[in-house]
């Protein structure tokens, strides 16, 4: 072997070592979402902000591969396979179907799921405490009873509550089921108005005008996608609308006790950080967003209340974390 070539080999070896050492400091995370709805993108935004707060800077010590299946299940399946091939340090799955696809496809790569309502029923995990396996995450189950209490506080003579939701969404459906279960106890009847697809949201709202004292919308990406149209219907018909998260109140709902989706993304980042530091997802309990400290707050939209013809009790306004 000539001197130059051995020198070159040595240099190449040194370079490889340097690259390897560098690569060890860089974490790779892969994120998949089923859809690009504003709510889900807020979760992703919060996740990125949370990771930054934990000291991960994208492009420096963090590589992020973010993909949306754009509603297509075949694409979701392929994205998951692609992620597995890239062998990232952790896969973050936003929504129930993408979480199912990832968990069905790999038993090795750590998975943190988020924006899933019922991790047990969706078969993501078999138990909440120490789920075992390679997956854990955060549920967006809403504090339904607290939210309905606010509705009753603002509409004291509530006899009939209308529900606008997309029955094809697992998350929305389970909220509706839990409302149905507690409605008799709280003393009001339920009228369901399904909105299959974003174009049917306004007509689903119109169908309730005159029949109900208030409308409640669960965490439903379809309805939130066309939320302004529902607000307009409610203003015209003088029916107050209540929702399950912060931003929809900013967009025109009267009030909610709920959490912020960006905040949920940040809490997801906390779990991701633990995994990146070596904790196994199987040792991390499933978290419920509504039970986490400081996750819930009261949000009120004064202007909307006026337009929808309801009076806000003064002490309620005092308790609010934010009045739009």
């Amino acid at each position, binding site marked *: 072997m000539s001197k130059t070539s051995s020198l070159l080999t040595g240099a190449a070896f040194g370079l490889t070592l340097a690259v390897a050492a560098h690569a060890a400091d860089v974490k790779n995370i892969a994120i998949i979402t089923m859809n*690009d709805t504003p709510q889900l993108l807020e979760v992703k935004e919060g996740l990125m902000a949370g990771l930054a707060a934990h000291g991960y800077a994208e492009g420096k010590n963090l590589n992020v*591969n*973010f*993909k*949306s*299946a*754009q*509603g*297509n*299940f*075949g*694409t*979701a*399946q*392929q*994205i*998951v*396979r*692609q992620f*597995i*091939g*890239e062998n990232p340090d952790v896969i973050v799955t936003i929504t*129930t*179907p993408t979480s*199912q*696809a990832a*968990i*069905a*496809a790999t*038993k090795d790569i750590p998975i943190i799921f988020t924006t899933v309502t019922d991790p047990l*029923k*969706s*078969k*993501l995990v*078999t138990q909440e405490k120490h789920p075992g396996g390679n997956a854990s995450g955060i549920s967006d189950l809403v504090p339904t009873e607290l939210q309905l209490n606010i509705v009753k506080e603002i509409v004291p003579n509530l006899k009939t509550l209308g529900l606008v939701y997309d*029955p*094809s*969404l*697992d998350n929305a*459906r389970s909220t509706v089921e839990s409302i149905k279960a507690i409605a008799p106890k709280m003393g009001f009847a339920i009228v369901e108005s399904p909105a*299959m697809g974003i174009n049917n949201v306004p007509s689903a709202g119109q169908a309730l005008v005159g029949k109900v004292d208030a409308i409640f919308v669960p965490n439903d990406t379809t309805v939130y996608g066309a939320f302004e149209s529902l607000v307009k219907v409610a203003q015209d018909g003088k029916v107050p609308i209540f929702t399950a998260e912060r931003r929809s109140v900013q967009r025109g709902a009267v009030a909610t006790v709920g959490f912020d989706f960006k905040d949920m993304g940040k809490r997801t980042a906390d779990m991701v950080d633990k995994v990146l530091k070596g904790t196994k997802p199987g040792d991390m309990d499933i978290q419920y967003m509504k039970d986490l400290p400081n996750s819930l707050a009261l949000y009120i939209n004064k202007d909307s209340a006026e337009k929808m013809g309801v009076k806000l009790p003064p002490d309620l306004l005092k308790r609010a974390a934010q009045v739009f």
Partner: protein
Amino acid sequence: MSLYAFTGAIETGLAFALVALGAYLTFKVLDFPDLTVEGSFPLGASVAAKLMVSGVDPWTATLIATFAGCLAGFATAFLNLKLRILHILAGILTAIALYSVNLRIMDRPNIGLINMTTVYTPIERLGVPSLYAPVVLLAIIVVIAKILIDLFLGTGVGLAMRAAGANPRMAQANGIRVGRMIVIGLGIANGLTAMSGALFAQMLGAADVSMGIGVIVVALAAVIGGTALMPSRLVPMLTLACVLGSILYRIALALALSTGAIGLTASDVNVVTAVLVAIALWLPVRRSAFVKRLGR
């Protein structure tokens, strides 16, 4: 593209190849653009998933799902033949009705199938790694389905179906009952589609009511793209072209998903799909123009 991404493309392509074979029967042979598949695909998934969580073994569940798909095809044929509703509209009507039907069947929008015994489990028990098991089984099923369709189109009924699609008036004049051919064709096509849905759900780990979104585009992309790349007059070559078209479509999508390469981002996937289909549609036009120029 990694090996995993590549096998992922192959297995998804194989699963959807059954839909493509069905679309070949309706779209190419019968000249009947059938949109029922957007409903019969999730129907197959829903029926199989519901039966599986109720304790039925996965093979029986998949078979019953396939028959449910045939019924969906019959429904579209009924709307078209008896109620005289335009073929495209008849398919759309069945598909949107099936959306509600699927919600009823599952009683919720999503049934998880993770860690359940599926049709792929026996293959895994043979020692095939779980990531490759679907490819092996799907390849066998697709080859069998392809050969059966080839044989079927050579039988008396099959030839009658081809005649009914090529020239309905002439076929009718020769004593072929065109309506019956449409019923049979739609039944087989949607049975294959539902089987595909059932097999895909078991691979994905869930059946979901929204699974049908985009199925028709994928099926047509496979049929049109495949037959454009491999033009032929022979049925066995054309069905092979549909299967390969389905796989090639997925490989192209996998390439599109490998972002960074040509500045594509996550949100560009659908436009890539549309461009691929448009190119496939344009290829035959260009080829015939080229041939014409040579002839001059």
